[in-house]
């Protein structure tokens, strides 16, 4: 049983780390110096990476995943049990 548990631990990505851990790494990425040209002008790099995220659009909408093709029978079947018309578990009853 311990082995199964360990395997499960490895398989499941640690979401807690993903959410709370990555902040530190992102902060480290900063410190990008502007290049100087001719000692007078600074090249303003096009906004990228962290910058773009920092000035991104403040919006709570979660864009749907385009990879799912809802024309396909398999995709339709994959959510069939979410509806009352689908299969019911043994211990529950309509």
């Amino acid at each position, binding site marked *: 049983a311990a082995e199964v548990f360990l395997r499960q631990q490895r398989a499941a990505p640690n979401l807690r780390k993903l*959410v709370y851990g990555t902040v530190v790494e992102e902060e480290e990425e900063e410190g990008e110096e502007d290049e100087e040209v001719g000692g007078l002008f600074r090249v303003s790099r096009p906004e990228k990476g962290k910058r773009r995220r920092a000035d991104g659009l403040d919006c709570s909408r*979660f864009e749907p995943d385009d990879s799912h093709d809802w024309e396909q029978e398999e995709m339709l079947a994959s959510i069939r049990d979410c509806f009352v018309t689908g299969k019911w578990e043994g211990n529950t009853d309509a």
Partner: protein
Amino acid sequence: MASQGLTYDGCNFFRQRLILSTLSGKRVKIRHVRSKDDNPGLRDFEASFIRLLDKVTNGTRIEINQTGTVLFYQPGLLFGGTIEHECNVQRSVGYYLEALIMLAPFMKNPLRALLKGVTNDQKDPSVDLLKATAIPLMKKFGIDGDGLEIKITKRGMAPGGGGEVLFTCPVRRTIRPVQMTEPGKIKRIRGTAYSVRVSPQMANRIVDSARSILNQFIPDIYIYTDHMKGANSGKSPGFGLTLIAETLNGTFLSAEMVSNPQGQGETILPEDLGRKCAKILLEEVYRGGCVDSANQSLALLYMTLGQQDVSKTLLGPLSPYTIEFLRHIRDFFQIMFKIEVKKPNEEEMKGGNKVLMTCVGAGYTNISKTLK
């Protein structure tokens, strides 16, 4: 640093920061707001948002530098009461309403806000969607009673606006902890197809095409058609659809789609819009969970501010906005959630992986609420 409050860079997640700052009483400073942009500083809609916060609070101090790239915000007391706000048309009323919904239960006086502007646009959750999903969610946290309502008196489409929405919300001393781990099966699908300043037939065409897809799953579908005329129809033409799937346990999953604003982008046929919207709803069902993806952060906020007890909620995949919200909750309230992945059984066909969020509430009490 502690006396200075928290400092952030960039204008993203602007609302989250100001909302959490207002609730926690911590000062916040936002630097480098579009500092490398051709048009630097705060936009009109953000300024409008700050004005709205100023209206619902007492004693808020706001300092903005000349170019608008640095904002210092010292929150005051949440006062509430009756307010009227002209929302900037760059963002829809949903942008402002989302924030008010988060703040409203913690005010001194029950909030009665009349918001004017764009009711439906492509960026933000529309007022229809919030009305159908956020209100039932609030009820689960013990925020209910006569006063809780979102009413659309006038509809206004982008870019002209001209809509009007009335939001009323009672105040609560504490928020109830919740245990939402079983979403339940979907028993019916409801929706609203609306059209303004176009042929009322558009709404019927949307309904037919959306039904053609959803009827494969469930027969109990009813989509209202809402055609507003004259002064109630705002300044710009447009049409759209909001779909809501309701489960046996009272979970509401939603999807919506709006036509492109007049003069921007290609015109979309109402049939295509209906079909696309139905597919977005299927995607939302695939994600699943007890809270709709647009309201994840609202649920997590109420969980954080609940009594000192364990709250559990099953969510679909976390949206990027929610992930950032979790980080901000940690910054402002020092609360971290326990996040567990729940894989569905092989033989069950219930969509993708779910996430179980668990936390102990901060024991936040609304001290400004008057006792009666």
